[in-house]
């Protein structure tokens, strides 16, 4: 066989036909292609995505391989999929230097499953290989310690830093740890403000790709402190399909808009119920309300989660359903949503502008 020499330029030209469906650009101009090596017909390279939870990872791998295999003389193509979560450059860089993205999970009212969604989101992103932290900022009903079955973290170090707990690969801190035992946190605004700042800034989070913040319901002191203390990458709203729940969710959504926190999308929880006996489906709270609201507000709809006893049971036992039963319909719904959240964050990270105050 006569030797055909394949050049680097040929390979890159071929890969220019592979488009990232979210960023609407080819993977070469996005700088995703790394470590290209060519040894006669054997070609190997990395495709470095913006999140390990990328929902189109397999499609991009296949398209990349097929594109390069089409080059005359290419016999063996090895595509190694890697990921590096990009940090969206934001106006303020002082707080949480090593945390790339802060995702707030909010809701209009309580009891819509916001903490359950936050715990599953965190566990699912961690499972995909990302470095994830989860801050339970719900001062009224801190429930993450139960859902993630994690004990109290160690006492503050002499330098006032707090080591986070860890469960299911997620680093954890809960405002619930700040009160002893089963005592409630009875705080006026300034106390809540100080406690959240301490939880955000004094916890030794280390390097994180995503910090998920589980907010209290509604719009209060904790929300205001969060959006004023750190540059929040984006917010996710959890709502039931019910109209009344949705209308209140809109208030939380508007608060994020007013403080220029990008909305990553809306999740419909308790979307429908499948009877374990007959398999019949019942839309207890109505269905599709959150999807309609998302469409009318031009906000991404991130998916629907069924009302499922397994989600509740696994949460009470301290293991999120994405870990306990990843292949159940609920487990799959949760991980799909986590993938979509990561996707939206990646889109923001590319669209944002760098901004800091410069002295002239």
């Amino acid at each position, binding site marked *: 066989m006569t030797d055909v020499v394949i050049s680097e330029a040929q390979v890159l030209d071929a890969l220019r036909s592979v488009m990232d469906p979210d960023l609407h650009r080819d993977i070469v101009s996005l700088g995703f292609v790394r470590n290209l090596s060519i040894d006669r017909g054997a070609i190997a390279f990395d495709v470095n995505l913006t999140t390990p939870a990328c929902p189109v990872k397999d499609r991009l791998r296949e398209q990349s391989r097929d594109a390069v295999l089409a080059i005359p003389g290419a016999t063996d193509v090895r595509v190694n999929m890697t990921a590096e979560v990009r940090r969206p450059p*934001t*106006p*303020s860089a*002082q707080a949480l230097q090593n945390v790339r993205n802060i995702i707030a999970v909010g809701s209009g009212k309580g009891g819509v499953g916001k903490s359950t969604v936050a715990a599953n989101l965190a566990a699912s992103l961690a499972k995909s290989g990302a470095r994830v932290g989860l801050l339970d900022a719900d001062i009224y009903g801190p429930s993450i310690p139960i859902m993630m079955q994690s004990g109290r973290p160690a006492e503050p170090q002499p330098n006032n830093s707090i080591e986070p707990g860890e469960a299911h690969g997620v680093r954890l801190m809960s405002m619930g740890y700040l009160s002893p035992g089963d005592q409630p946190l009875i705080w006026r605004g300034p106390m809540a403000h100080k406690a959240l700042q301490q939880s955000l800034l004094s916890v030794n989070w280390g390097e994180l790709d995503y910090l998920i913040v589980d907010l209290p319901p509604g719009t209060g002191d904790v929300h205001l402190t*969060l*959006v*004023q*203390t*750190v*540059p*929040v990458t984006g917010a996710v709203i959890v709502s039931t399909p019910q109209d009344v729940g949705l209308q209140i969710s809109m208030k939380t959504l508007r608060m994020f808009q*007013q*403080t*220029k*926190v990008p909305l990553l999308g809306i999740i419909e929880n308790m979307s429908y119920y499948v009877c374990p006996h007959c398999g019949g489906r019942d839309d207890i709270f109505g269905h599709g309300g959150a999807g309609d609201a998302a469409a009318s507000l031009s906000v991404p709809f991130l998916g629907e989660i069924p009302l499922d006893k397994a989600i509740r049971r696994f949460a009470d036992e301290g293991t999120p359903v994405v870990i306990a039963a990843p292949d159940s319909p609920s487990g799959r719904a949760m991980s799909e949503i986590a993938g979509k959240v990561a996707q939206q964050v990646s889109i923001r990270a590319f669209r944002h*502008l760098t*901004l*800091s*105050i*410069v*002295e*002239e």
Partner: protein
Amino acid sequence: MPALAPDQTTPVELRKKGTERFTVRWADDHESVFPSRYLRGRCPCAGCVSETSGQRLVFEEHVNPDVGIVSARTVGNYALHFDWSDGHTTGIYSFDYLRRICPCAKCAGAASAS
């Protein structure tokens, strides 16, 4: 008050010149140059604007003519905070508010016409 377009309230460049002025360039390419005293005299905090009536209590003419910016920082994604040389620190100036008080001849003209 007419609503502002996102481009009009999204900053793309923030510049401070010593203690004397602060400049914001916006996504629509407009530039707002705020002299220190002008900005200090339009502080939106609850001490400078009455919380109940919305009436302004502290005006530019009440502020020391030599007032300067000691330091400036961004607040989350949506606002700026200043430490002033007269010791005042409580104002949070949202980007929406800053665009509405742009002192340039064109914006100031539009504001007084409306």
